[in-house]
């Protein structure tokens, strides 16, 4: 039953990826500009050279054939060759993916700890704690990542000098130090969103009859909170946290640019400007896969957390 639910989710994931890959490829195909222009440095190529290059990069084939060529390669992990750089797109992506991955993971940890922690505090402690969390989170939710980045750099890197302004550093601690401000900038508004949702979910659960039952049975308060309030509130909290973290994958490019991090997001923007179409396609596909995988994890958690989830009861 549960297995069936998961199989369905995986099948839907495959379909989503197929559609996304087509959209990505078609969008870059119809985008204006000649992919060979970057190679020739703006000079016009001789017709012979033009033909030779088009054949080499399969640019002379019909659209669907090109798509098939690209897709079948992508399934095997081969995302083609960057025309201006003469390098494998997979290698180019792999060199930069770890930065984006670390950044998103770091931000995710901040979101889970701070967002759920603050929401829990506000939900369980009505009064001034609750009000302060509400006010602060309302303000934080309205701050876009690039503004947060600028403010954080100005305050903590330039004025106070606590953190480096740019780069990725060496070793684990060096990375941690260099990625702290970017991760905070990336996580800030999401922390606020998750905190608010957590607060609401906790409030709703606290008022539930089954929580009253638990109290009436003499179960100690901390166990009532963990075993009943938090356990049941985990269902909406997980969903929102998962979706929020998945969205970080897209926002990370802004933060990477602000902090001069050589990650996938920044590289995507640079490649799009430089007309490096193979790289744009490759990164887009990787980002979509990551997004969809995070969602699969959320759906799996959902099925684990709520025994009432029936086969296909929560489509899309």
């Amino acid at each position, binding site marked *: 039953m549960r297995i069936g639910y998961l199989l369905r989710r995986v099948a839907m994931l495959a379909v989503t990826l197929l559609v996304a890959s087509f959209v990505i490829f078609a969008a870059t195909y119809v985008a204006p500009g000649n992919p060979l222009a970057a190679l020739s440095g703006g000079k016009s190529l001789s017709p012979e050279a033009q033909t030779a290059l088009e054949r080499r990069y399969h640019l002379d084939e019909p659209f669907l054939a090109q798509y098939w060529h690209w897709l079948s390669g992508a399934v095997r992990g081969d995302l083609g060759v960057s025309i201006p750089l003469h390098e494998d797109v997979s290698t180019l992506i792999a060199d930069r993916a770890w930065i984006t991955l670390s950044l998103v993971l770091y931000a995710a940890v901040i979101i889970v700890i701070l967002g759920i922690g603050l929401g829990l505090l506000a939900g369980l402690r009505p009064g001034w704690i609750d009000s302060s969390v509400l006010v602060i989170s309302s303000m934080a939710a309205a701050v876009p990542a690039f503004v947060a980045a600028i403010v954080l750099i100005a305050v903590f890197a330039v004025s106070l000098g606590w953190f480096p302004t740019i780069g990725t550093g060496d070793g684990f601690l060096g990375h941690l130090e260099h990625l702290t401000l970017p991760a905070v900038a990336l996580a800030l508004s999401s922390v606020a969103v998750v905190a608010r949702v957590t607060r609401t979910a906790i409030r709703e659960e606290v008022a539930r*009859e089954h929580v*009253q039952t638990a*109290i009436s*049975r003499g179960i100690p308060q901390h166990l009532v909170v963990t075993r009943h309030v938090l356990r049941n509130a985990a*269902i909406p909290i997980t969903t929102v946290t998962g979706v929020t973290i998945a969205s970080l994958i897209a926002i990370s490019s802004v933060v990477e640019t602000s902090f001069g991090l050589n990650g996938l997001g920044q590289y995507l923007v640079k490649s799009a400007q430089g007309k490096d179409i193979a790289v744009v396609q490759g990164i887009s596909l990787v980002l979509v896969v990551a997004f969809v995988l995070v969602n699969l994890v959320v759906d799996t958690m959902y099925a684990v957390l709520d*025994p009432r989830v029936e086969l296909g009861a929560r489509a899309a």
Partner: protein
Amino acid sequence: MNHPESAPLLEVDRLGLDLLVGGVHRSVLRDVSFSVAQGEAVGLVGESGSGKSMTVRAIDRLLPAGARQRGSIRFDGKDVVSLSGAALRSYRAEVAVVFQDPRVHINPVRRVGDFMTEVLRTNRSVRRRDAGARAVEMLAKVGIPDGERRLDQYPHELSGGLLQRVMIASTLLTAPRLLLADEPTTALDVTTQAEIMGLLDELRSDLGLSILFITHDLDLAAAVCDRTAVMYAGEIVEVRESRLLHDDPLHPYTAALGAARPLLDRTARLVAVPGRPLSALEAPTDGCAFAGRCPYVEPTCTSAAPVLVPADGGAARCVRVEALRGTLGGVPHA
């Protein structure tokens, strides 16, 4: 039924309660006094809003924030209101509540076994396996033979009647002395209702449990309870031996409640209590709360708040109790 030599197990004395409604304290219970002896079943009957559920919540210390309480509640001689921490938790283990709707009163995402054994494991340090074995045993006692299988199921996989049996069995695992049954059969269909009532009655005689049975149904209370208190608008209006309430009520409200019950062998139109039930929040302070709906109302009824006067082995809160005695039984109030 009553053991005069021993003090009652539960003693509610002049309980008054104000709730915070829209920032203002408003009275929902006034002068509620009754007691439950060891092994005795007492009914608490009234319409919605009469304060019967609030009385239960006051006894189990489940009052909403901002509630103000007067009077005293004593359990086994101890003052319940002053309990806190571990003492309050162990009191709650001795006073178990069977709630109205097991569907919402049992955590839907935890297994039945987890619900049943939770208190044993968290408060009594019983090991999971031993607690499970005791749960299966208790399920058998309440008429669920395949306990092993049930423990592995989730609440939504069980029927309402089965789930209420689970709830009752779970309360028995901590060997409580008093069962607060808050309309335990209202969410169930009629045949299941009869089974659950039979079960409660059996438990009382087998285990010597005291039961405070909350219902809106006078005859249902009479089926299991020795004595019954009838509540109206936050006050007890009559306390009597249960079987007398239907045939020979002392208070006009009790008579009206008795007449309002549908009978399977009677084809006449269902008689409703005339007028709108007054909630405890709206009760007047200077007269009888039932006066507006009472067919026997006189000017004296609205001039002063009536007190509970002893009569016929019980008590009634009616200034005309002497005048009306013997005339209210079985009379339909159209």
